[in-house]
């Protein structure tokens, strides 16, 4: 079973925005120069991002690292509220505060083939995982989106991951259906699934297979305040008791998560 090591953030760092790119009406990607985090970040880890010297919004927001190289990391996000709206209007040269990198991350595969399954922005950590996958491991990438408004996002992903397969609910992009249609009926012993996206999608994947659940790694999302394991605001129920998504996760084995206790 996947049992990633918990990891507290190395510290709070300043990051300088290199560039910002608008991908769809509501999705943006930002490159940030932050050497320490870039050096330390592993796939599946995230940062808590905020504006220094601003008390509203106050708390950092968790965003996955979608790439790291040289001095830079990148993030991509959808505008859903206060912080993401402000981030979408940021300009190159502006300074952000980054706490991280944190969380256990996806770790190393224990099989020879990894199928990465993303729902919309859940692609962010998986892009990083895909690019850092050890050479001897086979890999698939499946992305599910709602409708045609995600077309530019899918185009953008395709440039990063040429062999990606798409599913959309309206069938305009890729095949009609959800990512579940892209998964086999059984999970072969050589294969594992890494997934990130909306909770209903991950729950469905986590509960799809009666055998092999321990080979499914899910990256969960909860509300967070501190991102360092202190507030216990982000806890979920697992078979091994309460765990904090920020430092004990965000990646858990599907077998371990008490799915019925998760809301959403």
């Amino acid at each position, binding site marked *: 079973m996947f049992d990633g090591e918990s990891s507290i953030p190395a510290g*709070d760092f300043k990051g300088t925005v290199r560039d910002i790119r608008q991908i769809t009406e509501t999705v943006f990607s930002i490159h940030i120069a932050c050497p320490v985090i870039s050096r330390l970040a592993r796939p599946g880890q995230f940062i808590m991002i905020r504006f220094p010297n601003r008390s509203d*919004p*106050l708390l950092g927001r968790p965003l996955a690292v979608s790439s790291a190289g040289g001095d830079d990391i990148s993030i991509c996000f959808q505008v859903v509220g206060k912080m993401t709206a402000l981030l979408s209007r940021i300009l190159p040269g502006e300074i952000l*505060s980054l706490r991280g990198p944190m969380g256990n991350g996806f770790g190393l595969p224990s099989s020879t083939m990894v199928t990465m399954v993303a729902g919309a922005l859940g692609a962010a950590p998986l892009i990083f995982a895909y690019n850092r996958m050890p050479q001897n491991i086979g890999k698939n990438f499946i992305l599910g989106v709602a409708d045609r408004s995600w077309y530019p996002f899918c185009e953008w992903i395709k440039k990063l991951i040429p062999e990606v397969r798409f599913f959309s609910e309206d069938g305009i992009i890729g095949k009609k259906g959800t990512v579940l249609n892209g998964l086999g009926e059984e999970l072969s012993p050589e294969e594992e699934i890494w997934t990130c996206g909306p909770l209903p999608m991950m729950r469905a994947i986590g509960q799809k297979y009666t055998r092999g659940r321990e080979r499914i790694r899910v990256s969960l999302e909860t*509300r967070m*305040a501190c991102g360092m*394991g202190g*507030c*216990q605001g982000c806890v979920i129920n697992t078979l091994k008791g309460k765990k904090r998504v920020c*430092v004990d996760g965000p990646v858990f084995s599907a077998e371990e998560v008490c799915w019925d206790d998760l809301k959403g």
Partner: protein
Amino acid sequence: MTSKDKSLSVNIGGVLLDSPIVIASGVWPYEEELWSPERLKGVGALSTKAVTLEPRIGNPGTRVWETPSGMLNSIGLQNGGVDTFIKEYLPIVRKSGLPFVVNVAVERPAETEATLKRLNEIREIIPAVELNVSCPNVDDGGMCWGLFPESAAQAVSLAREFWKGSLWVKLTPQSPDIRGVASAAEDAGADALVVANTWLGMAIDTRTARPVFERTCAGLSGPAVFPLALKAVWDVASTVNIPIVGCGGVFSYQDCLAMIMAGASAVEIGTAMFIDFETPARICNGLAGYLEEKVLSNLRELVGIAR
């Protein structure tokens, strides 16, 4: 400035602190790396997460929610119980080499008594107990003890009987008579007062048209409460002679100075640690700079000067 610079040292109820910055209860996890001196620059002492007699799993549902310049929490005293604390966490806490206070949530008298007896057995290694008569997030006891002078006196007397070390009492700002409660705590044997815990607030999820928190109400902290906490310190300082630790929304050295000028001798910081690990060091630098500018030799000279 370094933490060995004595100009910022204070004595809170017999506990000697090199800096007036105490990390508040419930914000600092027991991850070992976080208790190393490098991660605690500028910190004078730490308060542990609340300890209860038996383990508690805490509250279900949403536990944290941001508000304008603040946050609500409804954690519900999740902790492993006093025995786990002593066995597993106390060794980590002691590694920092800094003074610490064990935050004890007041439960029913028999439970509180048992918890304090356990701690009292190892009194020589515990600098102080912070009696929490102010937790807003549980049904049994918690904040109720701190609402009125009579119940506060009862809780503090009980603690005084079974805990022989330094006793800090953390008040609730929800009391309609915080001065009365403060006096009652002092009379019952408190060595210092922490003013204060979180304010009761709530949030409604407009999508579901339901309160965000299962227990409806939750505790408000962060910069939003600072002026309220400052007033509570001001009020209590007019009533008691024991040292006061100001708590609520302290983020900057100016906030810390204001608390001290109102009558506090030190401050606790909670939410600020969620957004900047460097907060204690930053505040200490600011304080040291202020003392230098005003040609003062010790922060103590500023306690209550705004009065």
